[in-house]
């Protein structure tokens, strides 16, 4: 997916609702962007037309439904706070779809989708593109209050397994432990892993998959200015094997093969 058909559109907000503590599901009307979007791609949203906050905020596309782009985000600072106050009917400027999406392997595989926190967003979009029965969706949260009720989001999604660090819902522990348990013990043939979430989680998933020789694609975050590959602001360190000192998340990613990243430096 190269830089083609990127659009900057002033879009109407279709809906916005809080689905968990501080976590919002936002629907934005754009047939053009929704029509082009692929799982793993993201958009840059201008939370309001003012000089502060200045830069756009990047968000993964969580799904597309009837010409609406769906985003799932957590309020963590000023930009997301302002965004959460946007009401249906208001307009916001959206640039996208940006970056390279996940590459689904051909043939029948056992697909593991591993998301931590808001990392579930791009994986939900991907889940909708996988034939039912081939994917397991593993989601990890600190505790149940932060857990997004995935089934109520109105997006297609396969069997969900939940892990919370405090054990308040699902399995107690880290989602990476859950993944490790499944791929080590169940002796699964041809597994493929797609993951998105906090860096420590991705680092663990990557080292596990690299150790076991399991193909693994991860989606990374980085501070961004342009989202278009123009500013070189979103650098992440490349592994020795990659032959690159840095990749740019917005243009080379956000989805990378786990082996391309220098996890020790990230």
């Amino acid at each position, binding site marked *: 997916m190269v830089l083609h058909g990127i659009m900057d559109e002033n879009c109407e907000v279709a809906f916005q609702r809080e689905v968990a503590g501080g976590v919002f599901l936002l629907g934005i009307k754009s047939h053009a962007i929704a029509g082009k979007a692929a799982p793993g791609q993201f958009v840059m949203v201008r939370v309001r037309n003012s000089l502060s906050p200045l830069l756009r905020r990047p968000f993964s596309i969580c799904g597309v439904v009837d010409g609406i782009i769906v985003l799932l985000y957590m309020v963590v600072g000023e930009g997301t706070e302002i965004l959460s106050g946007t009401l249906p009917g208001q307009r916001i400027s959206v640039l996208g779809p940006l970056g390279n999406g996940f590459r689904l392997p051909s043939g029948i595989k056992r697909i593991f989708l591993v998301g931590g926190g808001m990392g579930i967003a791009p994986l939900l979009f991907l889940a909708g593109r996988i034939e039912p029965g081939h994917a397991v969706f593993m989601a990890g949260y600190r505790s149940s209050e932060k857990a997004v009720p995935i089934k109520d989001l109105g997006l297609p999604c396969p069997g969900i397994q939940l892990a919370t660090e405090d054990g308040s819902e699902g399995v107690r522990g880290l989602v990476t432990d859950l993944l490790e348990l499944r791929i080590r013990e169940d002796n699964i043939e041809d597994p493929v892993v797609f993951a998105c979430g906090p860096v420590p989680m991705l680092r663990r998933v990557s080292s596990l998959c690299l150790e076991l020789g399991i193909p693994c694609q991860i989606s990374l975050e980085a*501070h961004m200015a342009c989202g278009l590959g123009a500013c070189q602001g979103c650098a992440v360190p490349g592994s020795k094997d990659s032959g690159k000192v840095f990749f740019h998340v917005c243009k080379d990613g956000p989805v990378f093969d786990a082996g391309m990243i220098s996890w020790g430096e990230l």
Partner: protein
Amino acid sequence: MNAPDLSVELGGLFLKNPVIAASGTFGYGEEFSPLIDINRLGGLVVKGISLKPRAGNSPPRVVETPCGMLNAIGLANIGLDAFIKDKLPKLLKLSTAIIVNIYGHSLPEYGELAGSLKGIPGIAALEVNISCPNVDCGGMAFGTDPDMSARVTDAVAAKADRPVIVKLSPNVTDIRVIARAVEKAGADAISLINTLTGMAVDIEKRAPVLGNVSGGLSGPAIKPVALHMVYQVARSVRIPVIGMGGIMNYRDALEFIMAGASAVQIGTANFVNPGATIDIIEGLYGYCREKRIGRLVDLVGSISLPGRGKKDLMV
């Protein structure tokens, strides 16, 4: 009334309009081509090119600050050879002025860059970065010293076969001194300002936010500073001045033009609104039409100063 004439001439560089995309914010042009018609721009300055490729600084490289941003990209670029081979042919197909921004670590490197770009048809001008705050060797050292600034200018001008624009750093005590020094050394035009040195601290980690500790501040936050420096420089030299720093819309652009800039560059605004350059061009047309101004150049340096004792005013 005929369509207003927005064209400008800058020391031998002819532009169909005064709106130029700034170095480092517009990549090599192609990044924005899905979104705007680049041919409509007056010009485009490519990301700073060095003799050898540079990977750039450790992340994080950008951080937002009030009404602005800090960047410490570290002049990451593909190097002169790859630029000439892979990027330039595509750029030269565009019908906008292609300005190549160069920077070196030593005087001979600046000269070598200018020499290597000599004779390549289609390059409209060179912009010499003597001001990037992010590279520990060279960079800042040249642009903050009038004598070194002059010597870099001379090294480039001696080898260049097209207009040389020298881009000044604002991180100096008196920018007029540097401006006069580069004018004397043979600059055809001056552009300013590059970013102001700044810093941000992460109070959770008790660490600088940027991997490089310090970075360059750009965006609306620096506009008043940039505007004043443009005003000062325009009144201190005879060569044309290209103004930049926080220009977000055509009104900002007009402020710079009226303060003395013959053309403007648009940087950070491209990130916020990828169509910023086009909107500004249209805004300038609109303003000229509305005010019945036939030629935009008539607005350059047109601010009238408070009447009494003009000479005593501090510039």
